[in-house]
């Protein structure tokens, strides 16, 4: 399926961007904006977007993008939007291919596009903006509430997928969106962006399930901006891919906004997973709760950096972050780095992190009930994720995540700690 035979240009270069624009047009992102983004990508160091963050130990600057062919296909055309939530459409929800969204829904698109994202802050956000070749625009008008989840599926290919997901909820709107990323080719590459823009009193539940193949590389930058009393429940399951870099930030810009963040990852084999979350409290009485559960098995590597940032005007802010990591083999490694930046006085902020193995006392307790060691370890390890998994929307999604975690344990095996 690769178009590599008829192209001489590879990698993420200006020539590649020329080819992309020539083949598919600039779509919803004007050409100068793409070129600026590419320039920024080339200038910005590949480092953590969170202040105080360290360079990833598997240096992202060395990420080899030279074989990518970002203009080989526009996956956008493959998105079957007609099947997406007819009920939502009837309620007046816009669900559109990203490439034509601006042309068809100019006002709604322009209101949301760029509202949550500052691409200057992140090298991969710039890359995704420059080469965007896929994506979805969802606009839920003010006052509209839809119960059925809208499920967006992206499939990464070896030629590089750059999806842009733009979600806009009007005042008091309510919706649940599930974003799934899989890959059809082994050596798939995806570098995506999502912008979640919530007007006052809107409530968005947004879940991500990443199940790319074992040799895929997946990079994602997701940004949210919340109006007064808006609520965002964001949950992230980074399960697949060989290398994953996943960054999330919620900007709570008006009084009373609330963000819930749940993240789950489980590095197995020689997987590397790097997740950052940041909740920014920029207004009074904003609240956030972050819960992260991660595990490593085999030679899995992981890093979680979680930041709570409370700005000077955020009186009465209330933020908590709980991050627990479980090591299930000697070769696995997880760095856990919670951080707090507080510039206001009358706030509540809590963070806590643990990294550990399954406790002997838990094991013995289960074994004393007749449960053999391997089964006890499996049960305890799966249970460890449950406080996070149980917060994902929909039974189907929760069960899929549980099954994926079980498969990882079954593949690697437990019981090596006796």
């Amino acid at each position, binding site marked *: 399926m690769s178009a590599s035979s008829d192209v001489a240009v590879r990698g993420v270069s200006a020539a590649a961007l020329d080819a992309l624009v020539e083949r598919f047009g600039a779509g919803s992102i004007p050409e100068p904006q793409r070129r600026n983004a590419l320039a920024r990508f080339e200038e910005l160091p590949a480092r953590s977007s969170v202040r105080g963050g360290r360079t990833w130990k598997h240096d992202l600057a060395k990420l080899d993008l030279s074989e990518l062919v970002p203009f080989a296909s526009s996956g956008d055309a493959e998105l079957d939007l007609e099947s997406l939530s007819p009920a939502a459409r009837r309620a007046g929800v816009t669900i559109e291919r990203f490439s034509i969204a601006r042309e068809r829904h100019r006002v709604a698109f322009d209101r949301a596009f760029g509202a949550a994202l500052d691409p200057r802050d992140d090298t991969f956000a710039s890359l995704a903006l420059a080469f965007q070749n896929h994506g979805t625009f969802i606009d839920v008008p003010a006052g509209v509430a839809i119960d059925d989840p809208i499920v967006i599926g992206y499939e990464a290919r070896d030629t590089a997928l750059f999806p842009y997901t733009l979600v806009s909820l009007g005042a008091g709107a309510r919706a649940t969106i599930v974003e799934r990323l899989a890959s059809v080719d082994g050596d798939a590459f995806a570098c995506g962006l999502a912008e979640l823009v919530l007007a006052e009193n809107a409530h968005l539940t947004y879940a991500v399930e990443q199940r790319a193949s074992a040799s895929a590389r997946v990079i994602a930058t997701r940004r949210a901006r919340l109006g007064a009393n808006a609520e965002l429940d964001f949950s992230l399951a980074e399960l697949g891919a060989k290398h994953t870099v996943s960054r999330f930030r919620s900007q709570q810009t008006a009084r009373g906004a609330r963000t819930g963040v749940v993240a789950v990852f489980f590095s197995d084999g020689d997987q590397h997973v790097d997740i950052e979350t940041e909740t920014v409290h920029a207004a009074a009485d904003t609240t956030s709760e972050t819960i992260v559960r991660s595990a490593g098995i085999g030679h899995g590597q992981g890093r979680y950096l979680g930041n709570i940032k409370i700005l000077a005007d955020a009186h009465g802010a209330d933020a908590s972050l709980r991050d627990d990591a479980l090591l299930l083999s000697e070769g696995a490694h997880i760095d856990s780095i919670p951080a707090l930046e507080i510039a206001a006085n009358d706030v509540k902020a809590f963070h806590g992190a643990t990294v550990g193995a399954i*406790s*002997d*006392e*838990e094991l*013995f*307790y*289960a*074994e*004393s*009930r*007749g*449960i*053999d*060691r391997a*089964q*006890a370890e499996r*049960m*305890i390890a*799966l*249970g*460890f*994720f*449950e*406080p996070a998994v149980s917060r994902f929307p929909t039974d189907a999604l929760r069960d899929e995540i549980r099954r994926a975690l079980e498969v990882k344990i079954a593949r690697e095996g437990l019981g090596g700690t006796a």
Partner: protein
Amino acid sequence: MRRPYHGRDMSERGLRISSLFAGVGGTEGAPGNSEILKGIDLDVQPGSVHALMGPNGSGKSTLAFSMAGHPSYTVTSGSVTLDGEELIGLAPDKRAKAGLFLSFQYPAAIPGVSVANFIRTARQAVRPDDLTPAKFRALIFEKLDTLDMDAAFLSRYVNDGFSGGEKKRLEMLQLAMLAPKYAILDETDSGLDVDALKAVGKSVNALRASESGKDIGFLIITHYPRILQHIAADHVHILMDGRVVKSGGPELANVIEREGYDKIREEVAASVG
């Protein structure tokens, strides 16, 4: 070792502790730093209730953990047989499958694993395929009722955020659901208020009165005699410094109630003298 007159099978019945030496640390057959049990002999027959009483530090919990196979405790010599099967050397789950149950003084929390899932998994492990899910459900609701426990309990995570009383009720729920051959209750009365203690007593007595529970042999390990006001013991043993220094009938518990352990300690000192 006693060899009663009846046949061999009958003679092997019972939870039998013979010349048991055990301590913390070390490895099997090689003593660790401290030997705590210094030759314990007990014989708990099916359907009987033995109380093992002793002051702090006498070795009560060491006995419970050694019998159940806790990895931090080491049996240096002696034997524990369950209806003729040697338990020492078996993994903890094999001991449970043989029919042993330990009610913990401090049960561990297993976050993320629901009570229902945990008990179902345990029941399937010790008695594979004996109950359909519907029958399991009916049985667990019946047992919950006996313990004055709410059905919401089943969806909570095992011991996670439980009060002292809730933890002990969960131990009793598991005991009733697993219906072992022999049960060790390690300080089940500690940290319980009167209502919780009554519920525990009611649950054990209901189990003993039931078809599946009438043959369970109990070893109740306790510092204070008060649990014996709720569960009647046939035999009472006093443990001091790793040895059973006195055995008798239920009246022995009353002696402890009235006079504490000091009197017995003096008696023992005099007799060793």
